[in-house]
């Protein structure tokens, strides 16, 4: 049966926004790891392929009360409403070019399967999906640095963060080679962005493994929320939130911040709702 079981991994991330410096290492590490091409002009951020994109948030207050915060946004690897694996994008892809892997929780993308209808991009509220509007180009000789672990994409297909799935595969091979059944060691499988982050702001691991740091920080609630049954895996850490959690996308990227205004920007709230949500979050578990 296709469903989350105890044996399954559920890889996820928690990003400490108070540590994030907006330096861009994660973005470049990702591009370099995953053979993301670079165009001559990448200043139109709406057609610039950045699997990992760092948003600059601000509290919208005048000098000198201004505050800013950077928010790295990889693919959120949604497990969909009720944690059933029907991510917004996976459920709409007509050709099964993107799929939810129940054994890892990773939302995959098969470039050679995708025919470029872009429905998944429309479905994703995080803009984590990018279309290859152009053929990828590298200046003379620069193709030499392309990694064989991730195939470069042709024009006309959608691509996105894969949690460095090739690293998972390599780790799994290693684990099998070592005679074990599954990846238990946190360090055995880490994404390129996590590895590169000089501030150590990104913690990546298996949310189903209680020994992993990410699980210990996030403390995900395995049960659906009372007020919204679509939401599963809400963090029991009052400083941790997910982007657009109320939609029921059930992302596996968690964010952490001490700053209220940052946490508030994680979701949409009607007047007065945020205070209630924040207090509720804090009082019941904090």
């Amino acid at each position, binding site marked *: 049966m296709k469903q989350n079981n105890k044996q399954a991994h559920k890889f996820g991330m928690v990003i*400490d926004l*108070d*540590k994030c*410096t*907006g*330096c*861009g*290492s994660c*973005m*470049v*590490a990702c*591009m*370099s*790891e995953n*053979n993301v091409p*670079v165009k*001559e*002009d*990448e*200043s*139109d*951020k709406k057609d*610039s392929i*950045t699997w990992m994109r*760092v948003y*600059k948030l*601000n509290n919208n207050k*005048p*000098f*000198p009360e*201004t*505050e*800013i*915060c*950077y928010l790295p946004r990889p693919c959120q690897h949604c497990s969909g409403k009720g944690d059933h694996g029907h991510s917004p994008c996976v459920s709409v892809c007509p050709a099964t070019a993107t799929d939810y892997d129940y054994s890892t929780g990773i939302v995959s993308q098969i470039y*050679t399967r995708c025919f470029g209808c872009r429905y998944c991009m429309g479905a994703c509220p995080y803009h984590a999906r990018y279309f290859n509007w152009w*053929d*990828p180009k*590298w*200046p*003379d*000789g*620069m193709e*030499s*640095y*392309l*990694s*064989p672990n991730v*195939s*470069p*994409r*042709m*024009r006309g297909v959608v691509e996105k963060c894969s949690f460095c799935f090739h690293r998972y595969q390599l780790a799994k091979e290693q684990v099998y080679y070592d005679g074990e059944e599954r990846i238990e060691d946190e360090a055995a499988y880490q994404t390129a962005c996590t*590895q*590169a*982050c*000089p*501030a*150590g*702001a990104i913690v990546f691991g298996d949310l189903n493994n209680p020994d992993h740091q990410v699980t210990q920080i996030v403390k995900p609630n395995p049960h659906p929320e009372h007020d919204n049954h679509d939401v599963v895996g809400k963090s029991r850490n009052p400083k941790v939130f997910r982007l657009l959690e109320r939609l029921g996308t059930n992302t596996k990227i968690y964010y952490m911040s001490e700053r209220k205004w940052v946490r508030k920007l994680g979701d949409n709230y009607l007047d007065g709702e945020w205070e209630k949500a924040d207090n509720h979050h804090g009082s019941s578990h904090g």
Partner: protein
Amino acid sequence: MKVDRRSFLGLGLGAAAGVALSPVGAKLTDDSSIWTQTWFLTPVPEDGEITFEPSVCSLCPGKCGINVRKITNRPVKVDGLEGYPVNDGGICLHGISAIQYLYDPSRVKTPMKRNGDTFESISWETAISEIKQKLGDIRKSGSASKLACVSGDDKGSVAQLFQRFLSAFGSNNFYTMPNLESALALTAQTMHGEDATIAYDLENAGMILSFGAGLIEGWGSPVSCFKANASKKDRGSKLYQIEARLSNTAANADKWIPVKPGTEADLALGICAVILKEKMFNAEYAQYFGGNFNKFAAMVQNKYSVANVSQTTGVPEAEIAKLANLFVKFNKSKSVAICGRGKANDAVSLKEFAAVHALNCLVGNINQKGGAWILPQNEYLQFPDVVTDDAADKGLSAKQISTSATGFFSKIKATSKPDIEALFVVNANPCHNLHDAKYITDVVKQVPFVVSFSSFMDETAKQADLILPSHTCLEMMQDLPSGSGVTRQVVGLSKPVVDPVFDTKNPGDAIIELAKSFEGSIAESFPWDDLEGCLSEVASDIWDTLSEDGHVVVSDKAPGSLPSVDFSFLAENPATAALAGDNNEYPLILIPIDNMRVAPGAQASSAFAVKTVADTVIKGKDGFIEINPATAKNMGIKDGSEVKVTTPSGSVVVRATYFHGIMPGYIGMVQGLGHDMNNMYVADKGVNVNELITPVFETGSGLDAAFGSVAKISKA
């Protein structure tokens, strides 16, 4: 056979049915899928064995350990090196991009010789012999001191071989580009009278009082600072950031204290005054306070009263007193004060460095855990004495033209008779990176013989008469000592992890080869075959470990003894360098912004790095100024609209972007843009802020202390 309509139709239908039933359709459909999946315009990277090769990155003063992943000898990824004492696995975006620099479109592929306005390729032999010829003539004419060299820094054997060449040749005119390390050494010299450097134990500091130091903008050794900054949350440490603009560091700090730029020294002295007045200084360390401490104490309390300082800096009086108290009392001796705006590789002022260092001395954190460490210079390179001849001795007796690179360029233009006949530029791009860059370019143009050792056809290389292209960081063997405020004194060994992509050389090898082409004392001063041979001799103490482990930790502890402090320099209350220009004509102040994602050094940003830059920094080819909406609205300037920015040095058209985090009355422009290079990723994107800033020389130190420029803007 007569084909009537009926049989014709039947034939047609039959044929159609036949084709439809045949495997042709299925085959074509299948082929189409295969063809589109092996798309002819998409490269297929060759597979092979994965290997890792550790090395050290030389792209910036950080000198981080890197681990290069290779697939059968071609590097595919650069990661941070786990366990390396500087960065322990962390890496910045520029380091990751090192693989792009290898194939950068603006690389100089062979030695080049100027021919009118163009360059032609020549061989290394020809290039070396041409230089030998020219330099020989200069020496013969008895003006050996007229050879100068501008280098990125003076640490490591490559830079020192160039310096050595100048000495053997007979010139003192060796200059380094402005950098934090030199400022720290100068501060140590001024305040402690020692040939030392200063390092900051940021990862153990309780409170960091930063006077504009961009801890996460690339100050010091960037990754090391990132790590120290990130750990402050867990350690309960605090960062107070003092600067005019809400930089990333300020945003990430526990508190941001806006201050008028250029008045940091005043604020530091004001805090000193409070500490002295309240007798909060460290009595134990005060025993080491030597020359003129009392004079200094009297001076600051007299001249830098809280009221005065508040007036100058714009920081409220209460805030200053609070800062002083906090700084002294925060977990006792663990507070540390640092300075150097942004990446601190731009303008530096000795007064500011000394004033901030005085804070560290007063609080007594010198050589303490979490404090400022006065480390002896890392002298792992023991070069034999330079052999000189008469021509050299004569040249060396001449005075150095200036104390700073900017000063050097500003002086050689002034005289009609050339002060400088030949100029070497290595690991530096003064025509882009020094203030008043256009003027510098003009000066370089006028130097009769310019030799660039750049890997790229950058702004300075374009002015050269000869280019001897260097390897890039991944192709090069060299020793890389840590510095820039890092407490661990480490010497790393950069290794060639890939065969040179083009016909380039290690500049260390090139200078040895050049020296050996001379007869006599110059050649005698360079008795080695190549850089590696040289290193194994001059660094013989550590060479075995270095070549085996890739790095050597020379020391990682604070020195046991305490240095004495000399307050003489500060006691004289040196003048604060003021910006040149009329405030009425230019009502605004332009400050350069350091942005971690834009490389400011000798190398322009990589394609990857440029891609990460926000669309409020570069949009298409347009550059931006940041402006406070309040200031902008007064002038009727809309967000995103074009404006003309004029300073005494020049004027440019850029776009305005609103930013609440910049002090009203100030405009900011990101540094490191506006390159004139044959590289579509960076070419002509934005403008070079250095073209808009006029150098201001600090009295005494002679350093360029222009923290910005007076400016005016109008709708374009």
